[in-house]
């Protein structure tokens, strides 16, 4: 019989929203982790001295992907309960916490920061360029569906399954999801590049190509945008800082405008 009910677990998941409020260079998310976990520890340990030891244990270094933190909290509460019953040793809790935070940092950062956020951002950018005014709301809703599911479902799964939670990860086919998101983002980019980089040259106007004006302008824009993207990508691969690239792009734009190549 597990001691923590769903309401308490959701309270902890809610407190995990504030995980990084006191992020610091020594323990990173340690204070946030203990702050979120505290109601669970208070329930598990009746003896003040045991509770005190648990607080100290979880004030140690902690850093992971914030969206997966509640899952780790669930697992840790499961282990704390077993430790309180004398089923496992303290070192199991420490080792599991360290292992999970490293694994979930890699999985979470790759999934959310490297794949999900760029895809949702590219989709939102497309809608924003189309002047779709509710784009920010759509971005928030779409982005947060997996985030919120993970926060609240993760803690329940972690608490119920304990360390076995790691075995159900393959079921989510995270690598496959990441690949799919990468290809989808690239497809959106293929559309965004020729359509939303604004490059206008006076050449088409001065040569009076009225009947094909819009088509030719789109071709010129497509070629110009592709060239610009290629140049910036080369600079990015050459490890030039993005802000330096932005600055060079601005200077180039002003010069091209001054020489009446771009209007």
């Amino acid at each position, binding site marked *: 019989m597990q001691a923590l009910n769903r309401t308490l677990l959701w309270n902890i998941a809610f407190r995990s929203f*504030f995980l*990084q409020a006191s992020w610091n260079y020594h323990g990173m998310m340690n204070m946030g982790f203990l702050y979120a976990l505290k109601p669970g520890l208070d329930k598990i340990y009746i003896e003040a001295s045991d509770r005190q030891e648990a607080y100290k244990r979880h004030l140690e270094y902690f850093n992971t992907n914030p969206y997966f933190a509640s899952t780790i909290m669930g697992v840790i509460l499961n282990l704390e309960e077993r430790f309180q019953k004398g089923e496992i040793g303290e070192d199991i809790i420490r080792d599991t916490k360290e292992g999970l935070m490293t694994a979930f940092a890699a999985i979470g950062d790759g999934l959310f920061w490297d794949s999900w956020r760029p895809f949702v951002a590219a989709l939102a950018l497309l809608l924003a360029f189309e002047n779709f005014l509710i784009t920010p709301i759509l971005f928030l809703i779409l982005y947060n569906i997996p985030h919120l599911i993970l926060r609240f479902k993760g803690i329940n799964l972690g608490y119920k399954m304990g360390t076995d939670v790691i075995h159900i990860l393959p079921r989510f086919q995270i690598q496959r999801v990441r690949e799919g998101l990468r290809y989808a983002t690239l497809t959106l980019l293929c559309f965004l590049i020729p359509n939303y980089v604004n490059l206008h040259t006076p050449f088409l106007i001065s040569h009076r190509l009225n009947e094909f004006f819009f088509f030719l302008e789109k071709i010129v824009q497509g070629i110009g945008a592709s060239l610009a993207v290629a140049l910036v990508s080369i600079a990015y691969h050459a490890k030039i800082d993005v802000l330096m690239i932005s600055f060079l792009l601005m200077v180039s734009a002003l010069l091209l405008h001054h020489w009446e190549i771009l209007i």
Partner: protein
Amino acid sequence: MIEITNIALLVALIGGFVDLDSTATWQFMISQPIVAAPLTGVFLGFALGEILPGLRVGLMIGTILQLVWIEQLPMGMNVPPDAALASVLSVALGFSAGHMSDSYVIREVCNTVALLIAVALGLVGRSIDIWIRKLNTSIEKWVTRKIEGDQVFALAVGHVAGGTLTFSKAFVFCFVVTFFGVEPLRAFIQSLNFDQSTGFIVIQGLLPVIGFSVLASKCLQTKLELKFFIGGIVFFTILPALSWAAILLAGIIGWKLSGKAHAGS
């Protein structure tokens, strides 16, 4: 003077709230430029009686800033430039300085120059953020000492103090920049001639290139993918710009190719 004080206070409140989301709390991505900038535009537009123009300016600035900062990730020890503050301040400066002008060019130049200033402010924001994290480190040492001495109340105090510092930093920074920044920006824009002004509009049109390039560099992994990518650009250059078709195609390609990659692995 009263108007600018009120505007600066409003911007400071939005900045404080939005900046909390960037790392300290929630992480719903309200702090992403595509959300933070339109949000600022709506509130500022409401205060100045121009909600829709405010939202449009916010969306335009947010779109470009989202692309400029697209590679900045809060992973591990990395403290990215403060995109949230940059978004809030660029809309605050650009919209406040330009909204009264009848000229489209002046309004657009206000937005573009504010956007460029905000990129630099994002870097200042990062420096302040690093300083706040160092302060948090001192707080953490204090909390550890207190907990070892059985004074558990220190945990909540220390944790809340961290969040409060983040909010206060953003509040003060946004207030100061808005209060002192709008008039000099307006004066600078008025000093530009027509040719210089339109030059800034050309910059605005080209800025998305940065984000597109960074995103493409991160996503492309093989030469074959690069060939298909170029083919895709040609395809969408020739075809009419149908955004729904692009979304549909992205969905199909993402679904189909992920399955193939999975089967291959």
